[in-house]
């Protein structure tokens, strides 16, 4: 019995090791076939083949997975695999060459210490995610100004009555300091970094944040628009509703691109996948369906420094 278990364990391990080895081999042979494809592509459009591995941002993961499946249906020779792991993981792995695409909620230059490595990465902005400040519906506040939000998240205002709400203590449901969502919220809604206040709550999963804001009296947090429903109240930002239309028109400022980074210019298969992402079929279909905002619809553009241009 024990021997059997041991055998099973060893077999599993051996299998895993050989798989890992295969993975490496696959990658090298892929780049070889891709190079061939590149050459072939000049003379004729050959059928795409190879495998694309994408990892990183869990916020972007469902979209990449869904689009990847569709892409595989259209190109039977291609396999697209998507892993989560967070923006940091995605950037690390694409920079290290372990994956073809690194998904990130933030610009690589904001996250990576190594500026040279960040420069090597090519940015593909495939969607936009807008973030709204949300409060427990009971607090009686419908709109907050930028200054009020700053005061709340820095602990200057601790009771909702100070911002025309109920007489109730404010409970902050924050993201951890390394979170991309928090970085976006701080940069574009507050305009300043905030410290973690004593007694505040930190969660990184949008589901948990939503549950806590729904259940905790006096809670305030922030969520991507796709997570909003009746259970939490999205407050207006400086009098502007957090809606897709306002984001697209550039009226609502709290949003960020979802990036898909490649190391250098992508190979033919990866390029085809990224191009497919930008087609109307995906942008107006899957992107909207899953609650993101199409990148090609945006009437404003924003660079890494946060400068907005029409």
């Amino acid at each position, binding site marked *: 019995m024990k*021997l059997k278990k*041991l055998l099973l*364990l*060893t077999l599993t*391990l051996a299998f895993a090791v050989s798989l890992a080895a295969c993975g490496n081999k696959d990658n090298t042979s892929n780049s070889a076939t891709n190079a061939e494809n590149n050459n072939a592509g000049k003379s004729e459009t050959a059928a795409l083949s190879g495998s694309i591995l994408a990892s990183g941002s*869990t916020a972007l993961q469902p979209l990449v997975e869904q689009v990847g499946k569709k892409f595989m249906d259209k190109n039977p020779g291609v396999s697209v695999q998507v892993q*989560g*792991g*967070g*923006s*940091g*993981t995605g*950037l*690390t792995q694409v920079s*290290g060459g372990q994956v073809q695409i690194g998904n990130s909620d933030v610009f690589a230059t904001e*996250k*990576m*210490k*190594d500026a040279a490595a960040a420069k090597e990465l090519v940015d593909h902005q495939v969607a936009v995610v807008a973030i709204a400040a949300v409060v427990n519906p009971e607090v009686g506040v419908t709109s907050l100004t930028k200054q009020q939000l700053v005061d709340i998240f820095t602990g200057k205002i601790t009771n909702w009555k100070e911002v025309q709400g109920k007489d109730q203590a404010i*409970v902050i449901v924050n993201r*951890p*300091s*390394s*979170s*991309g969502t928090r970085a976006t919220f701080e940069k574009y809604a507050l305009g300043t*970094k905030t*410290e*973690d*206040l*004593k*007694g*505040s*709550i*930190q*969660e*990184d999963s949008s589901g*948990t944040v939503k*549950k*806590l804001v729904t*259940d*905790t*009296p006096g809670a305030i947090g922030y969520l991507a628009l796709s997570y909003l429903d009746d259970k939490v109240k999205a407050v207006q930002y400086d009098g502007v509703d957090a809606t897709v239309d306002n984001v697209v028109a550039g009226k609502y400022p709290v949003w960020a691109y979802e990036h898909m980074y490649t190391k250098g210019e992508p190979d033919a298969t990866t390029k085809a996948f990224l191009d497919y992402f930008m087609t109307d079929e995906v942008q107006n279909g899957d992107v909207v369906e899953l609650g993101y905002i199409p990148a090609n619809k945006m009437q404003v553009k924003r660079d890494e420094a946060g400068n907005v241009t029409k």
Partner: protein
Amino acid sequence: MKSNQDTPLLLRKHRTEEWIGRGYTTICVLFLIVIIVSIVYFVATKGISTFAIDAVSLSDFLFGTTWSPDDNQFGALPFIYGSFLTSLLAALIASPLSVCAALFMTEIVPSWGKKILQPVIELLAGIPSVVYGFIGLSILVPFMRDTFPGQGIGVAAGAIVLSIMILPTITSIATDALGALPRNLKEASYGLGATRWQTIYGVIIPTVLPSILTGVVLGMARAFGEALAVQMVIGNAPHIPTSLFESASTLTSVITLNMSNTVMGSVQNNALWSMAMILMLMTFVFVFVVRLLERRHKI
């Protein structure tokens, strides 16, 4: 004549089997050792680089109370404190319950008690920690919020969730120890006219105490390493809590919240690995304590 022919053949077969079995086990063990050594090496090099490469001072890390990676402040004391506090509290809550459950199954109603209680408690061990976290968040936290001051989320909620998670560990070890107790000890006690309760607290408990303590230490080790369930209910504010009903962090909750968001090689990422190294060292300590208790038990 026949047996004469068979014996060498059988012997040869036995020797081959012996050789194959021996070789196979050796390979497996070597593989295991390589895995363990490489894990320890990996965590240690990553963890040490915070101090060696990024020049974060060790005392600032261990005793600093400010965790603010953006300002290069990597004080991990609130998390170390949180980990110890929650696992100690969890052990305090779970130990009496587990010991009573074990006594119930072995001394009080061994027949149906064991048949019903043991599978139920073992079931607790099989529930995934995310389920504990979600139950904690949905039922325990609102209850705590209505009953005690604070947001419901906090050290107390974390400790209670952990205590339920480590119940099976302590119970099963205590049950095994009680079951292995020689009959004559109890019979001698009854023979002297002691009641069942007197026997339990005067003879049985003192005799199996080292084993029970082993269970408690193993339970604490589990509580110390548990991440997801605690993370969901403890609040994760990087501060030393002043009350049991205040948001706090543990080493594991900070690692799971931040590891995926940080880039490998950055100072913050390395600091997280340093915390992982502390967790690993603590595991060594727990194992060491268990060994010590076992040795005491044998004498």
